[in-house]
């Protein structure tokens, strides 16, 4: 599904280059569920953002769904992103001014779905996450766990092939975290969504099919479960 080859990312700090991602190569097959672990500052988020095309590597080759990402123009890249990728953030990042319903709906608007279609899809999603009763509330009126559910619902609404989640349970208690992991597992198994998550929890990491450990911008180890 995607392939990173000799990807590096550095920041110029004063005269020296500070490598955050240092020559990483990684193949991901469709249907995989990968957990990325590593100490804080090891480059996990950066890697995830590069995979999700929200950030650009300084060098290296990036292929995704048969496209040569590093050669694409901004517009094409964002089209590719829209079509395949859903993103879940540790800090939820819901739009404060929009209701739960509208937050979930927004990606569909950007993908030019018709209003009737959108209605059906959002209703479906609300149902699935059992948050129908909350659809008219604003993010500020929800608990962290509920907000993250909305965040995930929003990431999934357009039916992405690849779900990227950066510490999705980082701000939740363990019970809420577990629910979300169950959800991911189900998505992966039943809907065939490829998932890459960043997590600090060994337990959550083990929901995945592969665990990659990062250290100082390199892959320190990779373990198939």
């Amino acid at each position, binding site marked *: 599904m995607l392939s990173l080859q000799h990807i590096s990312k550095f920041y110029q700090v004063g005269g020296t280059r500070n490598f955050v991602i240092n020559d990483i190569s990684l193949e991901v097959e469709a249907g995989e569920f990968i957990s990325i672990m590593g100490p804080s500052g090891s480059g996990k988020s950066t890697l995830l953002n590069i995979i999700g095309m929200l950030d650009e590597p300084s060098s290296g080759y990036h292929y995704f769904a048969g496209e040569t990402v590093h050669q694409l123009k901004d517009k094409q890249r964002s089209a590719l992103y829209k079509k395949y990728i859903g993103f879940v*953030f540790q800090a939820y*990042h819901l*739009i404060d001014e*929009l209701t739960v319903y*509208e937050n979930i709906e*927004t990606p569909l608007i950007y993908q030019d779905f018709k209003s009737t279609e959108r209605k059906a899809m959002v209703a479906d999603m609300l149902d699935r996450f059992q948050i129908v009763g909350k659809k008219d509330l604003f993010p500020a009126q929800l608990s962290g766990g509920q907000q993250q559910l909305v965040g995930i619902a929003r990431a999934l609404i357009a039916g992405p092939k690849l779900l990227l989640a950066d510490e999705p349970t980082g701000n939740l208690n363990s019970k809420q975290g577990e629910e979300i992991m169950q959800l991911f597992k189900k998505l992966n198994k039943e809907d065939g969504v490829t998932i890459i998550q960043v997590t600090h929890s060994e337990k959550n990491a083990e929901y995945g099919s592969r665990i990659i450990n990062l250290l100082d911008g390199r892959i320190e180890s990779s373990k198939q479960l």
Partner: protein
Amino acid sequence: MVQNYLKIAWRNIKKHKAFSFINGGGLTLGIASCLLLLLYVSYHLSFDHQFKNLDNIYVVENNQHGDGQIYTFASTPGVAAAAIKAEVPGVVQSVRVDNYGGGSLISYKNNSFKKVGLYADSAFFSMFSYHFIKGNPLTSLTQPNSIVITADFAKTLFGDADPINKMVTRNNNLPMIVTGVIDNIPANESYQFDFVMPYAQFENDNVWAKGQNWGHNFCQTYVQLKDVGSLNRANSILKSIVARHSTGNTNQLFLFPFSKTHLYQKFENGRSVGGSISQIHLFEALALCILLIACVNFMNLSTARSEERAKEVGIRKAIGSNRASLIWQFITESLILSFVSTIMAVIILVLCLPFFNTLLKIKLSLPISDWSTWILILSIALVTGLLSGSYPAFYLSSFQPIKVLKGMFKGGGSALPIRKVLVVVQFAFAVFLITATICVYRQIRFIQGMGNGYDKNNLVEIPMEGELGKKAEVLINELKTNGAITNATGTSQSITQNGSNTWGISWPGKDPKQQILVDIFYAGYDFTHTTGVKLLTGREFSPDYPIDTNSKTPTVMINETAAKIMKLKQPVGSIIKYGDQPATVVGVYKDFVWGSPYSKIPPMVTFCDGYGGSVLAMRLNQAHSISSNIDQINKSLKAINPAYPPTISFVDSEFELKFENEKVLAMLANLFGGLAIIISCLGLFGLAAYAAEQRTKEIGVRKVLGATVSNLAGLLSKDFLKLVLIAIVFAVPVSIWVLNKWLQNYEFRIDLSWWIMTLASIITIVIAMATVSYQAIKAALANPINSLRSE
């Protein structure tokens, strides 16, 4: 998609009520001011523009050489019109118009009304396409006793009855027949009248105007050309037309577009050099500047909030929005606010117009039925929305989503300098407008303070019309006896209006080649006592000296300037000449302001008209109240001159009218300067609030560490004070330059002293600091624990 933008935009506006109010309020004020100014400008630009043939109508201007200069005026010989029609190819028609003596008493049955009238040739209504409600424009003035009246006057005279062929009486003796009724004259037209009579009546009323005299300029002549192509040839013929008909006469006629007469009234050396049009351009610039200030505010406040909005931008990008749709979203928001503000502005405008109209004594109204008005208003809303929304839109949408989401975005790094520049520009503008206001007011005060040379208080004037022409002496004696007045004198016209002048005065020792324009003014007995003009030497006219009225060598008084120019050793007793007529100087009086208070007083010669004249000036008896004096005068007038409704004008208020134009200028500078400052302050208020909010945590920490409220207020105000100071540095030289240029228009003018600039600067600083410190103090007073907890 659009629906989504609208929804979000509306929620954003609602969520940040104070912000939206300041932002939208500033825009509303800005747009309202801009529209008001544009309305004012278009009122003047459309002056005299209602006529169909406008592009081909010209007024005949007259260039007169003398004194090494060329004087240009729109007054021609009565014979010019016919000669032009006959001799100049391409002239479709020519018309003479005069309003001298046109004001008449028009009576129908038992009702009489004093109304303003014009004399005009019969082609008048085919040249000027006044709309006829009744009657035929082409034939309405052909009979010498016909009269065309306005709709309002028709209503006054006849009520709902058909006015056509009704007989009215003019000035109590002349029967006239109504041949036409036209629409009321719009306020923005040079000729304001209630009725028009045939030109023949003018010649009846003024016998001297008859005949083939090319040396006598007294009426306006209008010419309609076939097309613009005929203009050059017409002008070359007109240049010599006077000389051809009257040898030795050097006056040169030329055609000037009628549509331009209102705004291009200034001529120098025989050429048009503009006029009020420059003032109009000034107001256009002001309108644009105020709108720009409001837009600048909008951008300023919107970008100031960018940090908050940045997160939203980041998220939207991360869930699939592209840049274009983000830009549209922000522009939509800005458009909503600008449209709401525009609607509010139009409402405010409509509510304020009556007030503005009384203030400026004009008649502006929003031309609601004119689609171009709405297009203009819509495009102002659109342009304002786009202009003020585009910067935040492009700026905010350029954030890299991941940076924002990682919290690495530092608001304003790049926006701050621009925001500072904008604040500087706004306040520089404010300083300039305050300076201009002070300067214009000072200049008016200065001129008013120079004195007019007579005592304008307790002085009234009445027209000598009807019976009064013969019975002035009776009235004067009666009013003196019953104590209403102390003195009275007849004059050739109101002391507040200049009248005729002549090159034809000569005196012993005058260089025959030297041409000097001298004002001619007729006054009756008791002139200096009545008006308070100061007699310097000799005497004034008096019934005690029969030679004042019945001598072959009339007596004259002259003003101080005339005495100086004539360099007479002993003015009293000298003989001067008006043309070939010798006259004896009997007195010299101190100069008084007759025409413009802004220019030097010309030499003046005053002949005696005994108890005659066309205006009777009277000094009210201060022993009695003004109202009882006026009652007495009214009573006596009704008895002596029953046909005419009494019209008494107060010289002091007539004199004030001379300052009208400058007062309007000062008022507009004041009003719009004030508005510009309010708008700028709204912007500053918002920015200060934002700055305070941004530094809540810092303030909290500092407070915990022991900073006082004034420490903190100073900390927050300092940055803004710096900007205002920079603005002053820019504004002062510009103000000095512009205002000096303006003052050049006046012969008597104030110096732009340093204190005006200082005062304007201090006012600006005080206003700006009051605005900022409110926010600063509020922030400083807040409980630090709250602000620290908010992190």
